[in-house]
């Protein structure tokens, strides 16, 4: 692992550099002007587009840019294989289990996605809104009951919401949420620094889910896991490895992404009393406010694997190379967004690509929006006035392919 800070982001960027993680925005602005598709040799090497147009073009071109491998930092997950170590050997259990459809290309992707979409429409996820609201209120009760006027808005609040909601949807005990959170952090956030721990976390998740799947086959319930095991493709049951991989995806993809978005929104609002007031006084702008906060603080950067020689915006890419889809940078591209670095809660034109663009548009986008809306509304209903704790910003950020606050100390009047 390279630990030296990058000298030139155009040729040597490091998505795990602490300064970059804390404030990547000026780097993206420089790159867009100077070298719109940057390259690095770090972490196995990758390309990184930063303009909206290039990101759009690559995301639409799934024939050249495969989703078989969406991670850049280890452990690397490949469809149809288990985790590969540096020697290319299988690591961990459950070989053959990937995370479809995020790790699928057409034609598998087409049916795998179709199967997953109905339970994640806006209408379907609305069933869980009231429950999410109650959960947020309980969390806020506990924060306020401490009587200190202090909270960690990431640990005590944002982090507690998505695992509860996805556990409820899947139909697994909500007392599993602490385990889910720990596993997902070990797998994604801490994986680059501890690949063995990530493999172990993957095995933990798959072992747990496999037990649940077998249970739903015997005792179907009204939950997402039961829905998945009952699906058929061309009249045939979906293979176990597929159901297992999709269930794994639902746990991994639905947790630290949304928790990062909620945390970033609360970080922004802590420093912008005028935006807090607007959301409180103009409740009708909440949907547009959520989209704008997702745009400005997009957490997710997925990768693509180059399948064939292809040139994009002057960058000559070869088979086997990776492309880091920097959707967050595209969402701050001045060619598409006026005053991209300003949060404008009622921004009229906001075709953001925080949920990706093209065939891999985040299947959980409506769920993420619902959780963000509820989390922000409930927080502001109870803690309308708050600010970052300490004289300087003490927030710590996780980076890599999912960026968001991991600790967010705030203070509020008692």
């Amino acid at each position, binding site marked *: 692992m390279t630990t030296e800070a990058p000298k030139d982001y155009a040729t040597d960027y490091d998505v795990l550099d602490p300064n970059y993680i804390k404030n990547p925005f000026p780097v993206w602005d420089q790159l867009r002007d100077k070298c719109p598709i940057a390259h690095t040799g770090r972490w196995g090497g990758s390309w990184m587009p930063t303009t909206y147009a290039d990101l759009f073009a690559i995301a639409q071109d799934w024939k050249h840019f495969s989703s078989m491998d969406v991670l850049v930092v280890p452990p690397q997950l490949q469809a149809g294989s288990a985790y590969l170590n540096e020697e290319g050997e299988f690591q961990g259990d459950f070989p053959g289990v990937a995370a479809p459809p995020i790790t699928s290309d057409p034609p598998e992707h087409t049916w795998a996605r*179709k199967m997953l*979409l*109905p339970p*994640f*429409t*806006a*209408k379907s996820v609305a069933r869980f809104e009231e429950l999410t609201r109650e959960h947020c209120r309980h969390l806020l009760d506990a924060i306020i009951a401490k009587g200190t006027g202090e909270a960690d808005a990431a640990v005590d609040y944002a982090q507690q919401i998505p695992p509860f909601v996805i556990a409820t949807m899947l139909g697994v005990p909500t007392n599993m949420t602490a385990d889910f959170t720990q596993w997902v952090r070990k797998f994604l956030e801490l994986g680059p620094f501890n690949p063995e721990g990530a493999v172990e976390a993957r095995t933990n998740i798959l072992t747990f889910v496999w037990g649940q799947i077998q249970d739903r086959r015997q005792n179907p319930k009204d939950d997402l896991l039961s829905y998945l095991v009952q699906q058929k493709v061309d009249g045939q049951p979906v293979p176990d490895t597929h159901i297992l991989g999709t269930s794994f995806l639902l746990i991994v993809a639905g947790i630290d992404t949304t928790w990062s978005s909620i945390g970033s929104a609360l970080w922004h609002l802590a420093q912008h009393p005028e935006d807090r007031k607007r959301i409180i006084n103009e409740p009708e702008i909440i*949907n547009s406010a959520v*989209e704008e906060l997702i745009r400005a603080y997009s957490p997710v950067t997925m990768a693509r694997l180059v399948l064939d020689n292809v040139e994009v915006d002057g960058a000559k890419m070869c088979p086997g190379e990776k492309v880091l889809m920097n959707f967050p940078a595209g969402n701050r591209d001045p060619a598409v967004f006026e005053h991209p670095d300003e949060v404008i809660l009622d921004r*009229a*034109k*906001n*075709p*953001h*690509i925080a*949920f990706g*663009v*093209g*065939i891999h*548009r985040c299947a959980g*986008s*409506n769920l993420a929006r619902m959780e963000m809306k509820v989390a922000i509304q409930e927080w502001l209903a109870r803690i309308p006035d708050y600010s970052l704790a300490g004289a300087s910003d003490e927030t710590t950020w996780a980076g890599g392919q999912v960026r968001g606050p991991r600790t967010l100390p705030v203070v509020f009047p008692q």
Partner: protein
Amino acid sequence: MKIHVDQDKCQGHNRCFVVASELFELDDYGYAHEVNDGVVPAGMEEKARLAVANCPEQAISITEDD
């Protein structure tokens, strides 16, 4: 004015439905379709343009009346 959602391009972001719910409906998969054969009622033209401007897939087209 008429609007049309290209079903080969729509990926179900739901942005059009949120900004102009009078002009679109969502199917069971979350994909958007124009309602009323795409005819935009008088006074809704601005909402139709907003839907176009907010679609990340560039899937919505407008045909202006002659």
